[in-house]
């Protein structure tokens, strides 16, 4: 082992000092709670009585719980819907916003705006937008002679309604795309143009491959965010109608803070973790086929 110079030791000490706020926070609010969540998932505890160890009881219960499977199905449906629609729609928007046009800044601000205000006000707004009789969307549909669906009031249309709302608030995705588009070297387009490539060829053979890592990033993070999002759903539908919008996050919330079944809630939260890992792993294995990296 080499001797550590006093200078390096001093730098290391300073490093630990500077990092300490995060390090303490990591132990108190991330690592500690994670360990606690493992222990808790093997217990039955309603906060009042003393916790009792039930081994794999919560896990066995989970696998036999039809509501749990239903929530997984809803979560995946919502995730697929919001990512598929969000990632393609915002890509088109980002392409448009990347054009050297006048009022570019204004257009960008307008499309980013919803994601800044998202929160409870958004939830209340969209409850009304999706209202079967008075809502904006059905009014628009009615004006072209279409009888709109019941949206949040109907079993089949509740999740599509929530997906629409999620696309409206996808401004962050647009910003990330814009950053990616600006990173594509101009010379590639010039070379393609010299080769006689038209607009579509340039888009398909330059923009898409060069953007594929960014698209991939948006798909992965979009899925993770969608799998974990439920706060707006909690406010808007409370999981209903029936269990149509009972996503996994909401089910966890309900078990923990409505039924005070803390152990089962911890078990369910590990299921969410596994779901996130599985979906991300699938993404990465598919990525080999379509994501193009310039430098391997």
């Amino acid at each position, binding site marked *: 082992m080499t001797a550590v110079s006093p200078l390096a030791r001093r730098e290391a000490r300073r490093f630990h000092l500077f990092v300490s706020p995060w390090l303490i926070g990591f132990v108190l609010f991330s690592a500690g709670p994670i360990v606690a969540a493992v222990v808790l998932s093997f217990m039955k505890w309603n906060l009042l009585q003393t916790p009792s160890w039930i081994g794999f009881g919560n896990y066995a219960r989970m696998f036999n719980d039809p509501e749990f499977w239903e929530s997984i199905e809803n979560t995946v449906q919502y995730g697929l819907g919001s990512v598929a629609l969000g990632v393609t729609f915002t890509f088109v928007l980002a392409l448009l916003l990347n054009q050297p046009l006048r009022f570019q800044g204004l257009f960008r601000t307008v499309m980013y705006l919803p994601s800044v205000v998202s929160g409870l*006000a958004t939830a*209340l*707004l969209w409850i009304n937008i999706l209202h079967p009789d008075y809502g904006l969307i059905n009014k628009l549909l009615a004006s072209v002679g279409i009888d709109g669906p019941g949206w949040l009031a109907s079993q089949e249309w509740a999740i599509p309604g929530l997906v629409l709302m999620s696309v409206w608030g996808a401004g962050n995705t647009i910003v990330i795309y814009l950053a990616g588009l600006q990173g594509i070297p101009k010379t590639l387009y010039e070379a393609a143009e010299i080769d006689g490539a038209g607009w579509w060829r340039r888009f398909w053979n330059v923009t898409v491959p060069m953007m594929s890592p960014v698209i991939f990033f948006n798909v992965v993070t979009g899925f993770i965010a969608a799998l974990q999002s439920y706060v707006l759903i909690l406010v808007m539908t409370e999981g209903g109608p029936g269990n149509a919008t009972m996503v996994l996050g909401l089910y966890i919330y309900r078990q923990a803070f409505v039924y005070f079944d803390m152990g089962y809630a911890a078990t369910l939260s590990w299921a*969410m973790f596994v779901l996130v890992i599985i979906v991300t792993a699938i993404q990465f294995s598919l990525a080999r086929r379509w994501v193009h990296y310039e430098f391997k």
Partner: protein
Amino acid sequence: MLLETAARPARTKPGPSLTSDQAERIRRIRRSGAYVLLIISSAVFLLPFLWMLTTSLKSDADNLAFPPQWLPDSFHVENYVKGWTGSLPFTRFLLNTILITALSMAGNLISCVLPAYAFARMRARAAGIMFTALLATMMIPREITLVPKFIMFSKLGWVDTYLPLVVPEFFGVALYIFLLRQFFTTIPQELIDAARIDGASELRILWSVMLPLAKPAIAAICLFSFVGNWNQYLENTLYLRSMEKITLAQGLGMFSGQYVTQYNQMMAVALLSMLPILVVFFLAQKTFIRGVTLTGIAGR
């Protein structure tokens, strides 16, 4: 190599039918097409806000008219006053929200700048492991820690106080630290060395060299932190119980529960609750977008 480039133009000359006049016309058509698409999609994005505004100005009767109408017959600005000063103390909620948001933002800034600087510019043996741990915390669903944290804070007797919402904010947020660290690494080492030679301490370098250069990143973090805390609903509902302590977001939730049919007042109050965010966003917009583009949220 030379041969190749020389051969290219001959092989792939643009089609002979295109004169520069025609090319210009095509370009112009394409540009107006882009404008049309942009205007339509902007309208789609703005429509909900506009609708919110018109709804907030309708009379109670218009609001429930069937078939529903688009525009109010007369403007009822008093909805704003009625909604805000009705049965719920929204001014109180606003002050609470401001207090929590301000404390949290201050906490975030202090506790993220220091570790970010250390991760970017200092060497230590444990640095690598710690950085991996930092990245890992960004990927773990917060649901996992939600229940144990709730138990911990309720054992500490912190339920129905601001402590569970504010104290953790003073212990760093992984995403913000990561962002700032990315930004700090782009700042030239010579600047830091020069300051060191002048005898500046690390804190001094951070304060007078790094932070001024990192303004866009700081702006981005301030905005994220502001918006996040202002809109925070879940944790607020978990920890804040009594009427005089709750925040705007919770107040809005109660409002919608109380008056299901008074959309006009509800939209008025919802718009008012968004106002500070809109103002801050307009002020910070430019710096913010630059910060996001530069700090590599783009995943490269």
